[in-house]
């Protein structure tokens, strides 16, 4: 099987894509030309500007169709493969009971000014998500969900107080990269408050995160849209209560 693929409109290899955007230029032939230029710079050639619409005197919206000349190299795809086994509830319960002999302590919050709790609640609360129950539902976890708009210092304090094994942070609002700024503030605070060895596992999640950005964000793991509680539970157990052969990358140590 070929490891190089192209976009598919209605035939293999046709490379066809659809694009839309606004340019801050007045509508007209020149604007259409500008749109075609942008599309070509993006590697779309031929580019058909199939729709352009004036939005007031200074902006024009475009729809472009065309052939993207870039290919996708499937071997070079960066993807966070699920690098841990998905465990059943039963496996999680027994592993934690037998090996850790106490519940994994999890502190969760929406930090900064973000008040979107539905995502973190979906992971943590019994109610869960899309038919999967949240971590609370398992005896293997002791969950402290601090809710919305939690200031970072409060989160750190709570993590210290509860002796958290893992801190789960949700960020949904991404305008002006608020989520990145908040996560940076959070990791800095944890680095300051905890010695390296005792720092809880830092996990962030939210629909607009790039799952491959954990290292650059300075966290242990990032979860994106559609995450299920089971994935998070499995990951936490994998990292905190590893099977002997799995290695002890970040086993719970207190």
């Amino acid at each position: 099987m070929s490891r190089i693929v192209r976009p598919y409109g209605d035939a293999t290899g046709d490379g066809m894509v659809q694009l839309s955007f606004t340019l801050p230029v007045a509508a007209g032939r020149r604007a259409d030309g500008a749109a075609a230029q942008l599309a070509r710079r993006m590697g779309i050639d031929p580019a058909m500007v199939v729709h352009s619409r004036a939005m007031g005197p200074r902006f024009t919206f475009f729809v472009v169709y065309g052939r993207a000349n870039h290919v996708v190299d499937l071997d070079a795809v960066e993807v966070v493969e699920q690098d841990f086994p998905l465990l059943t509830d039963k496996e999680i319960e027994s592993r934690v009971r037998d090996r850790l002999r106490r519940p994994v302590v999890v502190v969760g919050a929406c930090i900064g000014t973000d008040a979107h709790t539905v995502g973190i609640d979906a992971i943590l609360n019994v109610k869960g998500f899309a038919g999967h129950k949240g971590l609370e539902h398992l005896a293997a976890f002791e969950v402290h969900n601090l809710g919305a708009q939690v200031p970072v210092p409060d989160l750190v304090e709570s993590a210290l107080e509860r002796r958290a094994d893992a801190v789960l942070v949700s960020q949904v609002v991404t305008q002006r990269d608020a989520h990145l700024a908040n996560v940076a503030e959070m990791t800095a605070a944890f680095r300051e408050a905890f010695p390296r060895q005792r720092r809880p596992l830092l996990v962030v999640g939210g629909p607009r995160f790039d799952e491959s950005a954990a290292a650059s964000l300075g966290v242990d793991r990032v979860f994106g849209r559609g995450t299920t509680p089971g994935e998070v539970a499995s990951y936490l157990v994998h990292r905190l209560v590893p099977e002997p052969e799995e290695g002890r990358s970040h086993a719970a140590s207190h």
Partner: protein
Amino acid sequence: MTLLDLDPGVVTRARDLAARAGRPVVDLATAHTTVSIERAVLRLAGLEGADHEGTPWVNRLVDAVRAQVGLEHGVALPVWDALARQRREGGADDDPLLRLAQRAAAGELDLRVPEGRSATAATRAAVRAARAGVRTIDRQRRVRERMLERLPVTHRPLVYLIVATGNIHEDVPQAQAAARAGADVIAVIRSTGQSLLDFVPEGATTEGFAGTYATQENFRIMRAALDDVSRELGRYVRLTNYASGLCMPEIAALAGLERLDMMLNDSMYGILFRDINPVRTFTDQHFARQVHARAGIIINTGEDNYLTTADAVEAAHTVTVSQLLNEYFAHQAGLADWQLGLGHAFEIDPAIPDSFRIELAHALLARELFPDAPLKWMPPTKHMTGDIFRGYLLDGFFTLAGALTGQGILLVGMMTEAVVTPWLSDRDLALQGVRYVLDAAGGLHEDFRPAPGGLIVTRAHQVLDEAVDLLGRIADEGLLTAIGDGTFGLMRRPEAGGRGRDGVAVRAPDYLNPVCEVLAEPVVGEGPR
């Protein structure tokens, strides 16, 4: 359902006028034959294949007959007469008709119009041969009926989707994907040029422009692929193609032989939109419909097309007129009401105030005029633009109008209508949109009660009245004159003009069409569905 409170008197008057306008055309059609009708006869009698240049043997043989003895007697008499002689002459003969055609092509054949006992013998042999073809059609019809029993599709509308890659081998997976995603009917659009070809190409084809050639082999491949996916899904997925253009009768025959389930087949489309000669079209059409009637195929008519060249509000009554004419012609050819997928479309300029309600008026009028016909409901095309978002929304409202007015066959609209022939993703998105509307609002027709005397009711009455007026005019001056005047779709098509005129002949008194003879025999085991 009588939401519009139509006056039964006016409706009856409309049908009477349609009959008055249509009768002379049926007489015309039954007084002529065409090269394609004669080729269809040979196809049903079992003549398949093409020569090394790709010219089908049926063309070779019909051309030979025409050259030597003229078309007016039909090909059956000269051909079966020649066959009898060929048999007498001896020689390898596992496919005598093919050999005859080959000899005709090689110019080795001496044809004549038999008389007396030879004629009687030729007639009998020809009818026997035609009966074999018709039996195959009957068998395919029964296969369909059985499959529909085992893999039933009870919901309405049937969701109808187009594939058009140009390559039958790309069409197959796309059609199967569409069926899995919810399509009930798959139409394989034909390559742009096919309708003007005076022969049906042969074999599996991979190179079409904006569509795939309609060939017997392509029909067979697609029907088999859809049978597979039907079984997988537990739901019979119907196949559609186009019995239109210069080869309408042959395509109709092939459709019956290969168990297609619906066929685009309009009485005037070829005249108006392909500039095919009117006499040729009406003659071909009558024969094609007789074959469809026998095959249990649902025809889809093409009124929607008028609204792509004429205005959907101004010309709304021309759609109604054409539906009534199509109905009349269909009945004359033996089609039952359940086989009449009369066409209309959601083509009103969306910028017009109340456009959606006017659409509902038109759609409901069709529904109430033809309560037992499935009706083919076509999506917006003309007013689609490169604004794919707007287009997606418009298609959603089109679907809603279909659900509110009980349309039977819903052609799925594509957001890229103004841009490209549909992509895989366009179809998937479109089906998703249809599902949303039908699932979320499909039952809303229960709550849809046009206000008495309101915009919808008034508009529907107005269109019907205009239709009656126009029918009156057509009945008086003749349908061919009306077509010549640009009554439909603003296209003017004079009676003497258009392509394919030279393939028409007036039937001689001894004209024989063995297929028509067989079709006139009583059938066993027929039943609606």
